[in-house]
Structure formats: structure tokens, C-alpha cells
């Protein structure tokens, strides 16, 4: 799921454009209605948390929260979040600087390989490590595995920011008498600061929401405990008070980001970006290469190697029937496609409203839909179970509810991609097309769709990819009797049937790789297109 989150940073980096032309008088009523409906759907999980907390009663929550055990879980969660986020920030930024700003040999290849761990689910990376080195568990193990799994979330936005940065600023700094190091610190990294912050937020939120990897590593966090209380011991009051704490921590992360962002904005000149001079690594080349080799080997080599090992070693006898793999693959792809389509469709009215009618009210609505980012998938799943049992009983444990869950969970990703492409189709183009004698419908077909289409495809791919590797929400919402690749893998590894599990991990990585590639191409094209228009 984590891959995709990188796009959210892009969103954070792109400030909404100020309206140039006078605001239009016509109120887009239909757009408002649909966008509000979407916002209401996305508000369900936070509402659930509040409702649950209110039902449990504040005094009981207080007694549960201030237990030694709860405080221990909170300490585990926060301690790990801070350490992993710091490690990811350092590793991700260093890797991005090496690839984008120096004469490192094989830069183009590194740029692809360094990102790849993002296509491997965190729980597969965890499984890989545990099966190679049983000593990897607890805090140290969790820190190692999660850093390896999540550093691309920092790498991606920081690399994009370094690539798009104006080299003129570095030149000016040098001409003003700053040394190389001072320029790096005060200009280059300062330019990348919003991207770095955005990446760190993604890492923290992913850590707070993670369940599978921690279960494998036997590290207890708030999320693993909520899962246990709600799914195993059915202790709803405990689960919901822990959920309340988890959501509060997530919001604190988002709030802290907003505070840090508020001070000092980085403005980008619209001038076309000129390639800056790359730093010569010189004698540092070998250590830099070794470092990247080690990083990729640990993050990518270990899990992929383990999966391949079990595929080969397992032999044909212990492998599950290929029909069950095919069935799970088809089902997973089907779920992912439906989730991708739904999330993209939900994002469209919100993006249209926010980009084309930029007012305070529409901006608030849009920002409101991003709030769901801070709600872990597990809690979204619990919210949907709660509401379906109470209001829409027939939906409980059905495929549609699972799809809606995915769509809510990955909505922010879809919105980022759709929003970017809606901005590529400004209203001025529609005005011109109409003045050339084309009717509204023809204008949509010939102008708007070709321009917004690629972004919608990207949104679809982002959600597809994230859904294929999603575990936590799937475990809670999946209809009884069916298995996706992730849940089947999970079931086998829980029984320690590693050889049986391996093919499912292999398929997941395979299915996720295709949209990853398409996405990579799309994001590569983005800055160039933006500078051309």
C-alpha cells in the first residue's frame, strides 16, 4: 500500500493556484451535491471513532487509556515512529541527493532500483527478514524492516523536488560566498524541505497504520492491539478507545506537518528548469556505490531472494494448486480494478470543484476529504463494519463493502492524481472550444477527457497497486470463504507454510509491478509538461 502514498506528497507540494479570472457566477450545483456526498462518505470513519468513544463513555476511556499497558503500547508506537521516520529521512534524502545531484555512476538505473522496495508489501519484507534471520524481531527488527520498507516514501518526493529545483539558487548562494556544504544545507536541502516533511508524514502515518509487518516481527503497537481486541477477543470498548488514541496521534502528525509547513514557504519560479551542474563525488564514489548496494540488497534482495528461494526449494509437492493461485490472482485483480475505478470516480467531482471553483468553501471541502489519510485502514474497516451492521445489514461481509473500504482508504491518492490532471485542462480551453462552435458535450469529449484521462488512469493505477498489496482492511472486510493474494499469503505464513505462501507473494509483486511502471512513467512526465504549459 505504501508505494502509492508518495503521490500524497506531491499534493502537499502543489499549492492550489490563485484564481486569476474573476470567479464565475454560475454555481455548480450538481458538482457541489456530488462532492458533498463524497465528503460525507469519507467522514464516516472519523465519525465512527467519535461515536464509539462517546458510547464507551469518557470515564471508561480515561481508565483504559491510562493503564500501564496502554501507555506501553503508545510508547512502543511513538518511539518506533520517531526513530523510523528519522532513519527514513536521512536515508531517503541521502539517496535522492546522490541520484539527482551527483555524478554517481549508473544514476538512471539507481533511480529505478532504489524505489522498487515500495512495490513490495511491508509484511512480505518482514516475512523475508524473519525467515532469513529469526533474530530480527522486537524494536530493533521493526526499526530495520520498516526503515527498509518505507524510505522510498521520503526518497520519491525529495528526489522530485531536487530535480525540479532551480539551480540558479545554488549558483547565487555560491556567488554570495557560501561554501559547498553551507550551500547544500542552506539552499539545496532548504528547497527540498517541504518534500522532506511530506515524506516524513507519509512514513509516520504508514507506521501508525501498519499491522502485518509488526505481527510478523512480534512487535506490539496500538494497531496490532486494536486488531487483536476487535478481531480476536471482540472487546469493542477497548478496541475503540485504543482507536481513539491512534487517530489522535495520526491527527497530531498531520497537524504538526501543517504547523511546520506554515512557516516559510518555498516558492518556485515558473521559468523552465535548467539542468544544474552535478557535484563530483571523486573519492567518495566507491563508498556511495557500496552504500546504495547495501540499501537495495537489504530492502529488495532479501525479500525477493526469500520468495524465490521458497519457490525453488518448495518443490511441486508443497506448492498449492496453481488453480487456487490463479483464482486468488483474478479475485485480487478484480477487487483492485473495482476499487481503482470507484476511487477515481469519487475523486473527480471533488477535484473539479476544487480546481475550477477555487473558493474558501471548496478548498475546505477538499481538505476535509484528505483527513481520511490520517485514519488507519483498520479503523476504516471497523467503521464500515459498524455502520453496515446498524444501517445496511445486507452489505455486511459483501464484496461491495470491501470495495467501498478500499476506495475510502485510497481516496487521497486518487484525488492527488486526478487533481493534477484537472489542472491541466483549464476552463479557458473549454471557453475557446465553445467559441469555435462546439457544444458542451463535444467539448468534454474532445478537450477535457483527453487532458484529464491520463491523470485518471494514473489514479486508477495508484489505487489498483495499493489494493493488491493491502492486508489489514482486507482481513476485516473480506467476505467469508474467499481469499485474496494478501490474505492467502497471510494465512500460509501464519501457519509457517512458507513454501506455500511464496507464490502468492510472487504474484502480488508481479501484479503490482505493472501499474508501478506505468506510474513511474507518468510521474516522470509531470514536471516537463507542467513547465511547458
Amino acid at each position, binding site marked *: 500500500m505504501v508505494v502509492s502514498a508518495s503521490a500524497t506528497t506531491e499534493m502537499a507540494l502543489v499549492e492550489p493556484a490563485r484564481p486569476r479570472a*474573476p470567479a464565475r457566477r454560475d454555481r455548480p450545483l450538481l458538482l457541489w451535491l456530488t462532492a458533498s456526498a463524497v465528503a460525507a462518505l469519507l467522514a464516516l470513519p472519523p465519525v465512527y471513532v467519535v461515536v464509539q468513544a462517546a458510547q464507551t463513555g469518557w470515564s471508561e476511556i480515561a481508565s483504559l487509556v491510562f493503564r500501564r499497558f496502554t501507555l506501553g503500547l503508545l510508547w512502543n508506537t511513538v518511539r518506533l515512529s520517531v526513530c523510523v521516520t528519522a532513519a527514513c529521512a536521512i536515508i531517503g534524502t541521502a539517496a535522492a541527493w546522490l541520484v539527482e545531484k551527483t555524478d554517481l555512476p549508473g544514476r538512471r538505473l539507481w533511480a529505478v532500483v532504489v524505489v522498487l522496495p515500495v512495490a513490495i508489501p511491508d509484511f512480505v519484507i518482514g516475512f523475508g527478514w524473519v525467515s532469513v534471520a529469526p533474530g530480527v524481531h522486537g524494536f530493533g527488527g521493526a526499526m530495520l524492516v520498516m526503515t527498509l520498507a518505507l524510505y522510498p516514501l521520503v526518497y520519491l518526493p525529495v528526489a522530485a523536488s531536487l530535480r525540479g529545483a532551480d539551480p540558479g539558487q545554488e549558483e547565487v548562494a555560491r556567488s554570495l560566498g557560501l561554501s559547498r556544504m553551507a550551500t547544500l544545507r542552506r539552499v539545496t536541502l532548504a528547497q527540498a524541505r517541504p518534500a522532506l516533511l511530506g515524506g516524513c508524514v507519509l512514513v509516520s502515518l504508514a507506521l501508525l497504520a501498519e499491522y502485518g509487518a509488526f505481527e510478523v516481527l512480534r512487535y506490539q503497537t496500538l494497531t496490532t492491539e486494536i486488531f487483536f481486541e476487535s478481531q480476536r477477543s471482540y472487546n469493542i470498548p477497548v478496541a475503540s478507545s485504543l482507536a481513539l488514541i491512534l487517530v489522535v496521534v495520526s491527527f497530531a502528525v498531520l497537524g504538526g506537518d501543517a504547523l511546520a509547513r506554515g512557516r516559510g514557504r518555498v516558492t518556485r519560479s515558473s521559468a523552465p528548469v535548467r539542468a544544474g551542474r552535478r557535484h563530483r563525488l571523486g573519492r567518495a564514489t566507491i563508498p556511495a556505490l557500496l552504500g546504495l548496494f547495501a540499501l537495495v540488497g537489504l530492502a529488495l534482495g532479501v525479500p525477493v531472494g526469500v520468495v524465490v528461494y521458497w519457490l525453488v526449494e518448495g518443490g511441486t509437492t508443497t506448492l498449492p494448486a496453481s488453480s487456487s493461485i490463479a483464482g486468488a490472482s483474478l479475485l485480487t485483480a478484480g477487487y483492485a480494478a473495482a476499487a481503482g475505478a470507484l476511487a477515481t470516480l469519487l475523486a473527480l467531482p471533488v477535484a473539479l470543484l476544487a480546481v475550477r471553483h477555487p473558493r474558501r468553501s471548496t478548498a475546505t471541502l477538499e481538505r476535509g476529504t484528505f483527513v481520511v489519510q490520517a485514519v488507519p485502514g483498520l479503523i476504516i474497516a471497523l467503521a464500515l463494519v459498524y455502520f453496515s451492521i446498524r444501517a445496511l445489514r445486507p452489505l455486511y461481509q459483501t464484496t461491495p463493502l470491501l470495495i467501498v473500504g478500499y476506495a475510502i482508504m485510497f481516496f487521497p491518492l486518487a484525488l492527488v492524481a486526478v487533481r493534477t490532471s484537472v489542472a491541466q485542462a*483549464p476552463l479557458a480551453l473549454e*471557453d475557446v472550444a*465553445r*467559441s*469555435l462552435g462546439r457544444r458542451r458535450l463535444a467539448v468534454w469529449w474532445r478537450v477535457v477527457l483527453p487532458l484529464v484521462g491520463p491523470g485518471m488512469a494514473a489514479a486508477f493505477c495508484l489505487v489498483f497497486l495499493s489494493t493488491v498489496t493491502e492486508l489489514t482492511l482486507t482481513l476485516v472486510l473480506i467476505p467469508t470463504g474467499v481469499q485474496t493474494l494478501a490474505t492467502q499469503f497471510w494465512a500460509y505464513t501464519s501457519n509457517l507454510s512458507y513454501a506455500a505462501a511464496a507464490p502468492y507473494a510472487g504474484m502480488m509483486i508481479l501484479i503490482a509491478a505493472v501499474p508501478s511502471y506505468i506510474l513511474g512513467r507518468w510521474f516522470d512526465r509531470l514536471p516537463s509538461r507542467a513547465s511547458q504549459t
Partner: protein
Amino acid sequence: MVRPAPVTRESNVTGLEVDDLHKSFGTNAVLTGVSLEVPVGSLTAILGPSGSGKTTLLRVVAGFERADRGSVALGGRVVEGDGHVVPPEQRGIGYVPQEGSLFPHLTVAANVSFGVSRATRRRLGGNTGELLEMVGLSGLGGRYPHQLSGGQQQRVALARALAVRPALVLLDEPFSSLDAGLRSSVRSDVQDVLRAGGITAVLVTHDQDEALSLADQVAVIRDGTIGQRGTPQELYDHPVDPDMARFLGDANLVAATVEGDKVSTPFGPLALRRDPLAWLGAGPAVALVRPEQLLLSTAVSGAGLRATVIRTQFHGHDTVITVDPLAPTGADPITVRAEGDLVVANGTEVEVTADGTAVVWPASVG
């Protein structure tokens, strides 16, 4: 460039008639009664500072915005008024927006033929090529917009608007995004194309130089209404008030006294400019003397205004010298425009005399 046979101008026919147009956005009244007539085949410039409502006027004429009150007629056909509205696609208006707004996913040729129906395209065949040739871009039909320079993009935008043979072309600050050198060449090319085709056009601009040099008729928009309308010469020579005089070019507005058809100014006596709008009173007045009417000399005769030079700006074809009067004249520093190069050191004491006629307003107006 291929020039189609010029169309004879029937200036008595109205190409565009706007009557008492009102438009507000919320509580912000942008247009407060704009009336305007554009003769067929003419190029009219709507000149105004930013925020004066000129773009809104254009958008209402094009049909992208609805007016609150008033009417718009094209060639005698009412397209907006009395609750009746013709949608933009049925108005037959060519629109050239500020940044060109070419369709980024279409080639130049596809952009140009965007509004041409399939049947027409088949019948005319090479029409696109002809249009591209007319705007000086033949051979570039296969390119995409991002492969063109800013000036080329503007030309394609014009060709695209002309391809549908519109009754009227609207140009919304089409040159403002171009750099200075390119601007003048694209400007004159666009002027040539419009003139050659006898096309009725309305150009919106905030650049008085552009308006005066390109247009047959200039309408100055101020505070949501047309402040003055006329040929460029009329506007420059007979502005309705001192503000208008300042807006239409460099202006020295000095205290003066009117006696009969003479006006005494700090530069010496001048003849009163005769025109229908002229003020016929007598007594204290504000006089307009354009910088090119002034002469500098270092010899002191006592007839003109004594001043010291404070700044000299050499422009190649002329030199603009700013002088500070020794005695107060009621004016800011005086601007003098002299042909060619004139080297006067700062601080030199000079005498400024004037030539030609002066426009005056009662002193209270200034």
C-alpha cells in the same frame, strides 16, 4: 504572407453593438453601463488599466459570462438581452485568449481545424495550410503546442479563431505574454492579417502604445464604463480630462490662464486647440502640453520656463529629458522629448519653450 483581397469597409454597418451593459460579481460591480459600437471591418481597442472590467466585457460579448443587464448585438442580431441568450458556440465569434490556450493534446493543424466541421474540412482540404501560411507558420502543422515559441503559439491561436470565419474576433491581451522584441513583430503581423481579411476585431489591452498604434478606434474603459471613444489621434489630441490625458501618454499638465483663444503657460503663450469638446471659458486653467511639443535651449531668452536638467534617458530615436522648474508651475517635473540624441549634463540650467496648441480644462478639474 498571402493577402486575401481587401474587403471594402462599410463603416456605417455595425459589427458589434453593446448597449448599457451591467455586470457584477457578488457585490463587486465590474461593468456599470458600457455602450460601444464597432464598425464592420474595423479594429477597435478597448484600453483600460487592470481591473477596469475590460476582460469581463470581452467575456460577456463572447458569451462565457452572462450580463446582468443590457444587450449585445452582432451584425444586427441580438445575442444577449431581454433574457435572451445565444450560447457561445452559436455566436460565431473568434476568441484569442491571453496565453493562446492552445489545446495541448492536439497538433497545430488539429488546433486550427478544431472548430471546422468535418464536411467543411473535406471540402476545403488545404484550408489549414492556407491559414497557417497567412499567419506565417506554414509547415508547422504537425508540431505540438509545446514545441512552439510564445509568438508562434499566439499566431496559431489567431489562425484557429479565423478558421471558422467568424463575424467578429476578440483578442484578450494577446501580446502581453510576449517579450518586447517579439511583441512588436507579432503585433504588426496580426494587424496585417486582420486588415487584409477585412475582419472586425476587438482587442483588449492595458498598453496605450499598443492601442494607439494598432486600432482604428480606441475606447478607454474606466470604472466600468467607457470614458472616451474615438480614433487614436482624437484621443491623444483631445482627451476629455487630465486623467485621460495622462493615461494616453506622457503629459505635462501645467497651471495656465486662458484669455480669448490664447493660453498663457509657463512655457510662454500658446494657441488654444479648437475642437468641439473644448472648454470655452476664460481664467485659471490646467493646460496639456505633450513632451514632444517642448523645446530645450541653453541660451536664455526669458520667454520660456527656466529649469535644471535632472535626468536624461536616451532611447535611440529620441531622448527624454526630465527637468525641474526653478519656479513652481503647479506641475510635477517637466518631461521633454527631443529627436535624436541630445547630450545635456544633469544640473545644467535650460530654458523650455513650447510649440503648437494646448488643450485646457478649468483649473478645478485638474
